[in-house]
C-alpha cells in the first residue's frame, strides 16, 4: 500500500527519532510512505478566528500537493500537524463560501482545492487500514515486561472534528502496545495538556505539568511514557531538567515515541531509534528489558 506522507518541520530535525522509526515500522507493515515533493509548514496551530481564512491556506496547500499526486489520502505522524491539517480541511468542507475564498487566496495554484483529500494520522492507518491482527503477526521482538503509559495530549483527541478516538478515554495507543507485547498502564493524565507552546517563555509551567503527568504514570508503575507529538516529547522529556530543579522529589523517566516501540517490536536496529536525540536516555531501560 502506498500513502502520501506529510512529515512536518519538526520530524525533519529535532524529531528524527520519530520520523525514522515511523518510516521503518510502516515499511515493515507493507506501507510505503511517499513524502510530498513540495510540502510547506502547516502553521503548527490551527487558527481559531472566524474571519482568519488566510491562515488556513498553508495547511490546505499540502492537500493540493496530495491531489497533484493523484492521491486522496494524506498521512502524517506529528499529532499537531495532523490536527491542524484536519481542522483546516474540516473548515474548507464545512462552507462552500469559505472554501471559495481560500481558493481565491491561492490564485497561484493551477487547480482549486475541492475538499476531497482525507487527512490521516499514522495511528489511524495502523488501526483501520493495516489492522492490529496483521501487526501481531509481524512482531519479532515482543515488548515483554515493558510497562508503558500512553500519552495522547490534546491533538489526537480534541476537538471532535479532529479526534481519532474517544476524547476522555482513548484506547488506540493502549491497544497497539498490547499487540506489540507490552503492558499498557492505566493512569489519570493521558489526555491532560502538557502546556504546549508555553515551553518557550514559561518553562516553569511545563515543569509543573511534566511533574504531574510523569508522576501519575510512575505512580501506576510505568517504565516509560509513549507519545505521538514532538512538542509533547520535548516538554515531557527535555523539560525534565527544569522539572528536577523545581521539584526535588521528581524521578526522571524515559519518554519515547509510540513508533519507536513499534520499530523495536518489528525488529528494527538501534539506528532507526535515534536514541541520541532523547534527553533522559531510554537505553538503560530498553537494555534492561532485553529490547536493545
Amino acid at each position: 500500500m502506498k500513502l502520501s506522507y506529510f512529515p512536518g518541520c519538526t520530524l525533519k530535525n529535532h524529531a528524527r527519532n520519530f520520523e525514522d522509526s515511523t518510516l521503518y515500522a510502516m515499511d515493515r507493515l507493507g506501507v510505503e510512505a511517499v513524502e510530498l515533493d513540495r510540502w510547506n509548514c502547516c502553521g503548527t496551530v490551527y487558527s481559531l478566528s472566524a474571519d482568519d481564512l488566510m491562515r488556513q491556506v498553508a495547511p490546505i496547500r499540502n492537500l493540493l500537493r496530495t491531489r497533484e499526486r493523484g492521491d486522496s489520502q494524506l498521512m502524517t505522524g506529528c499529532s499537531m500537524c495532523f490536527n491542524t491539517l484536519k481542522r483546516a480541511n474540516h473548515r474548507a468542507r464545512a462552507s462552500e463560501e469559505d472554501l471559495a475564498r481560500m481558493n481565491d487566496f491561492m490564485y497561484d495554484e493551477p487547480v482549486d482545492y475541492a475538499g476531497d483529500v482525507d487527512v490521516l494520522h499514522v495511528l489511524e492507518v495502523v488501526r483501520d487500514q493495516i489492522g492490529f491482527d496483521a501487526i501481531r503477526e509481524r512482531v519479532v521482538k515482543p515488548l515483554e515486561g515493558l510497562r508503558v503509559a500512553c500519552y495522547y495530549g490534546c491533538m489526537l483527541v480534541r476537538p471532535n472534528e479532529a479526534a481519532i478516538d474517544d476524547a476522555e478515554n482513548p484506547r488506540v495507543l493502549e491497544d497497539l502496545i498490547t499487540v506489540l507485547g507490552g503492558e499498557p498502564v492505566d493512569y489519570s493524565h493521558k489526555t491532560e495538556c502538557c502546556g504546549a507552546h508555553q515551553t518557550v517563555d514559561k518553562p516553569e509551567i511545563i515543569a509543573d505539568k511534566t511533574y504531574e503527568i510523569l508522576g501519575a504514570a510512575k505512580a501506576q508503575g510505568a517504565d516509560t511514557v509513549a507519545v505521538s507529538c514532538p512538542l509533547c516529547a520535548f516538554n515531557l522529556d527535555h523539560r525534565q531538567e527544569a522539572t528536577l530543579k523545581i521539584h526535588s522529589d521528581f524521578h526522571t523517566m524515559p519518554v519515547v515515541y509510540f513508533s519507536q516501540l513499534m520499530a523495536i517490536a518489528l525488529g528494527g536496529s538501534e539506528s532507526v531509534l535515534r536514541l541520541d536525540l532523547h534527553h533522559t536516555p531510554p537505553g538503560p531501560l530498553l537494555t534492561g528489558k532485553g529490547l536493545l
Partner: protein
Amino acid sequence: MTVFVSRDKINSGFTSKVQRLADQNLMACYQCGKCSAGCPMAAYMDVPPNQMIRLAQLGMEDELLDSEAIWLCVSCMTCNMRCPKGVRIAELIESMRQIKLRARQDHLQAEKISKADLRAIPPIALIGSMRKFTS
C-alpha cells in the same frame, strides 16, 4: 478582583466584537464553571476561563485585555469539549488575543529568545508560540 459594572461598558461594543471574531454567543454561558474546572492552565491564570466569559459578557475590555490569562490559554480544547452549553471558550479567548495582536501589541519578543534556546527548542514550539503571541 473588584470590578464595576456599568451600562457604558456593557454597550461599548467589546462584547459583540469578541463574539464576532469567535463566531460564538457569549450569552449562552450559564456559569457552571466546568471550563475552569478542567482547564490545565487555570491554576496560573489571574482570571479563570468562566470568569473571562462573564467579564466579556459585561464588556470588561481592560480587565480582559490586560490580563495574563488570555496569554496562558494554550487552546487545548478541553473546555470546549466539556461545556454543557456548547460554548467555544477557546475561540472566545483567541479573539481577545487577536484584538491585542491586530493592534500590534505582541506578547512575545522573539528577538529576546536566546540563541541557545533557539537551537534547543523545536520548531513546533517556536512557531506555535509566535503564532499565538505575535502579530
